[in-house]
């Protein structure tokens, strides 16, 4: 393990100002004894407000686990996770649920819309669960941004994959969360539909000032981000600002080689 370049990344933001979410010395360990697997090894990272961050790395590097932990979907073994200024480790399940509902948005690889609800109902579902009325103006803005105004009454089964994922993006944005997490949001889409969805995510950062964190293994997708962090064997190994697909691809290749030789 080469730990030297990591020092530069360790807790670069001592204060929480301008940080949408952060982790400090986050570790995640599965099993014990012989079957002990370290998925995340003391990862410290901050996601800035109004920034589109991509987490990249080879399969099994722990990028999804990092996202699940950072989003409060999974528990951590040690270390801390914050959304804004809230320390997730101190929250019980109800508080955590409320936090996810009000301050976090999700876009999943498998869309995960509720088949019994219409597109509009799916979009406003987080608000309905919270028992709040949607802010009409904001809703219109989000809906028109993802270009779904004509299809709001349709059920998910009547929408294409790209349209379903756009509904999912709108659902993630509708409650004005502090941060939106995307788990391979383009994994189930063809390249055109994928490009659309990535465009919306980037627009949400540019136009709405949204913070977005996306896990992906696709250099093209990563090319939409402002910043790419690279994970390998459960540890942060590098980061890149203003990435391009080519640069990301090169970096990934070197990670792969290192993964094989180590």
């Amino acid at each position, binding site marked *: 393990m080469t730990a030297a370049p990591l020092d530069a990344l360790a807790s670069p933001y001592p204060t929480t100002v301008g940080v949408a979410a952060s982790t400090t010395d986050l570790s995640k360990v599965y099993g014990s004894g012989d079957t002990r697997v370290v998925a995340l090894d003391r990862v410290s990272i901050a996601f800035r407000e109004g920034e589109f961050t991509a987490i990249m790395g080879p399969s099994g590097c722990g990028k999804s686990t990092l996202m699940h932990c950072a989003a409060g*979907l999974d528990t951590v073994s040690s270390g801390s996770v914050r959304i804004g200024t809230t320390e997730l480790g101190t929250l019980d399940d109800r508080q955590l*649920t409320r936090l996810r509902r009000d301050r976090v948005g999700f876009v999943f690889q*498998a869309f*995960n819309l*509720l088949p*019994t*609800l219409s597109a509009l109902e799916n979009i406003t579902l987080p608000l309905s669960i919270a028992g709040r009325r949607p802010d009409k103006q904001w809703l219109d803005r989000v809906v028109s941004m993802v270009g779904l105004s004509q299809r709001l009454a349709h059920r998910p089964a009547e929408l294409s994959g790209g349209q379903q994922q756009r509904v999912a993006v709108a659902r993630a944005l509708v409650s004005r969360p502090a941060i939106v997490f995307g788990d391979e949001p383009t994994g189930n889409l063809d390249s055109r539909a994928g490009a659309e969805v990535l465009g919306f995510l980037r627009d949400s950062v540019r136009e709405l000032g949204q913070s977005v964190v996306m896990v992906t293994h696709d250099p093209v997708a990563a090319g939409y981000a402002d910043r790419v962090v690279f994970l390998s064997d459960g540890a942060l190994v590098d980061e890149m600002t203003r990435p391009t697909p080519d640069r990301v691809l090169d970096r990934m290749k070197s990670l792969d080689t290192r993964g094989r030789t180590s």
Partner: protein
Amino acid sequence: MLRTALRNVLAAKARLAMTVLAVCLGVAFVVGTLVFAESSAAAHRAAASKNFADIAVTVTPRHVPPGPEADRNARTLDDTLVRKLAALPGVSAVRPSAEGSATLNAADGSPLRARKAWANLADAYVPGEDGKDTRHPLVEGRAPAAGGELAVDSGTAAAGGLRVGDTVTLATDGPVMRKRLVGIVTTEDSRVTAGGTLVLFDRATAQRLFATPGHYTSIDLLAAPGTDRVALSERVTAMLPADRAEATSGAAQAVRQAATIDMQTRGHRKMPMIFAGVALFIGSFLIVNTFTMVVSRRTREIALLRAIGASRRQVVRSVLWEAALLGLAASAAGFVLGLGIATVLPDLLGTAEDPLPSGPLVIGPLPVVAALGVGVGVTVLAAWLPSRKAAKVAPVEALRSSAQSPSAAAFRIRGIAGAGLLALGGGLLVSLTGAKDASVENLQHAMLGCALLVAAMIVLAPLLAPPVIRLSGRLTRRLGVTGRLARENALRDPRRTAATASALMISTALVAGLAVIGDSTGQALDRQAATGLGADYVIGTRGNMAALDPAAARRVAGTPGVTTASAVSDSVVFTGGRVRQIAGVDPGTVDDVMRLDFLSGSLKDLGPGRIAVSNSVAREQAVSAGSRIKAALGRAQELAPYTVVGVYQDNPTAGDVLGARAEVQRNSLLPDTVQRILVRTDGGTVSEAVEDRLRTATGNSPLVQVKDRRAVVDEAAGAMGELLTLMYGLLAIGAVISLLGIVNTLAMSVSERTREIGVLRAIGMDRAGVRRMIRLESVTVAAFGTLLGLAGGLFGAWAVGALANGALEGYALALPWGTLLLLCLGSLAIGTAAAAVPARRAAALSPLEAVGEA
């Protein structure tokens, strides 16, 4: 393929646990009932054959119609004959008896086990050469030796709280007797051990009461060891005066007695059998539904099997094997459970007053065959339909999409078939509302109509689910997004929802129908039985041959708290080619105790040769006040002219004809007796104290019944109690099975929707919200079943009630709001209870399920 089936059974064991439970319960009921029936019949047989085990031959007077010949025959069995029989070769002992019946009071003064007159036995204590009666071994005290003494068996003593030295009040057919209890014996007579009583008198007293002095009612002969019983029986017959006495073998008597007792207790087996049938019928929905879900869940797997080359037949066979294995396991478990039920049934059905004979469980081939047939048969049949459907799916199609909704054509066919059944059943029932009598033909039509109605409801339920649930969804939507989601989930697969609700629907329909008919009938009987009764108490007798002393009426009238006591002498009168009931009343006091509504004339002219008739008699005979008719009253052989002084509205208290008491009493078949004393109390007081005083006034005879108004009505509505038990039993069975069904469906749908629930958790629904959503879905399904069941049950009850209207005067549809409300609340409770486990499982799901593998 067998191995695949076996693997599936084991792999899906949690999923199929509910099916096993359903089959198991159905089988348990059937087996329990059958084993109970066989065991109790065997216990009766064993007890009866024990009674007669050592009796080779019994000699009785030849049975002839009453008359001088019968009197002569009754004097055939005397001590001379006893001695002659004892001297026959092969006879080891003779046991003469003087048998009859006697009813006695318990220590607290109430009649003891008096409801079964055939089991209130009395006999003579006949000592043998050693001074002991071998049939009745003494366990305490001594044998009755004088007219004022008696002995009872230990069961009777225990039930009545009687101890040696007590004075016991008893009656055989008329006057009350008081005798001292001097001994307690044991008996093996199965009539007594099955909940009867036994009283023993000394020989002379018994002979005086039940035969004539010096004579017996029967003589039992015991055979010496090694004697040919048939030959002995022939020797006895040859010795008897053939026209006066006859001989019966002990074996024949045992068979006869077993049959009698068996018949008397047969009712105990009917109810569990009905429960078993209903449990199985409703349970089969659960089984079919589970298999449909299990198979549709495995459509992909089946398609894969098909894609790699399994034939349709192999696929179907695999599912059928699975069902057969499951059915076998469940039947075995159900069989064991059934034996448990059979063990406890006698305790549940019997009461202290009315115990059932106990004996070892008898397991014949029938329960085994029934268990296998019912358990395996129903399960395999239930699996057959879905497996065929699964096999029909093209492999590619099944691999591509995860769920197919049924085609519109299938729904149309369902709609047409359902509407047809509904039209047929409903039409038949509605057409019956025109019929005004409950003839067998009409009843059969009614049953057919109800069956068609149930079938139509089952077929139509999936089509009715969406509109009905949308309607009820208006309510649940108020509960926010969880209510909305619950509604949509219930609507997702209307067929599954309907099948799940079917169990509850059928049981609700049955119970609602029964409740309405029962309540309406009860109210009608209530109204009818008490019609015309102005008295607060009716004093009567138990059995037809007992009667009251006219002097008792005067004693009752003199009792504190009594304002009027009017004696009624009941008898029969032959007029217009028919035998009718006549009540002889005292015109002076009868107005106080009977409410008579005279259409013409009045009672004040009642007297010898002057009668009043009910409206229906008047119509049939075409008479009115002032007419003259010919009638023969009581024992009178010749018709005599009578003048009709009045016509009154029919009522059961007065009967067909009213006459003057003196005249009726004189001509009665039980001359100079009265049958009823109608009592009015001060201010209509009805209390235990008053009842006790009335009992005392009538000499505390155990044959006398003192009934208040309520008891009179209850007696008339006797069958209603049984209907109520049936209703609540069905309700319980329906509740248990529907609960299982809903749990099953919910568990299945939770495991199918793992990902969706994960998403809901991820985007911010808390555990309580998830639980509430599942619970609401459950309640929605339960409410749907209940609503449909209520509608069907009420319609059926309304239609069948029309028949009752013809058979039962004053029948009107009455809705038992309490019971119906209870049904609705019960369904809510079932819905909530059924959701408990699935809801907890759903709430425990991690939000990470949303990102799990597809």
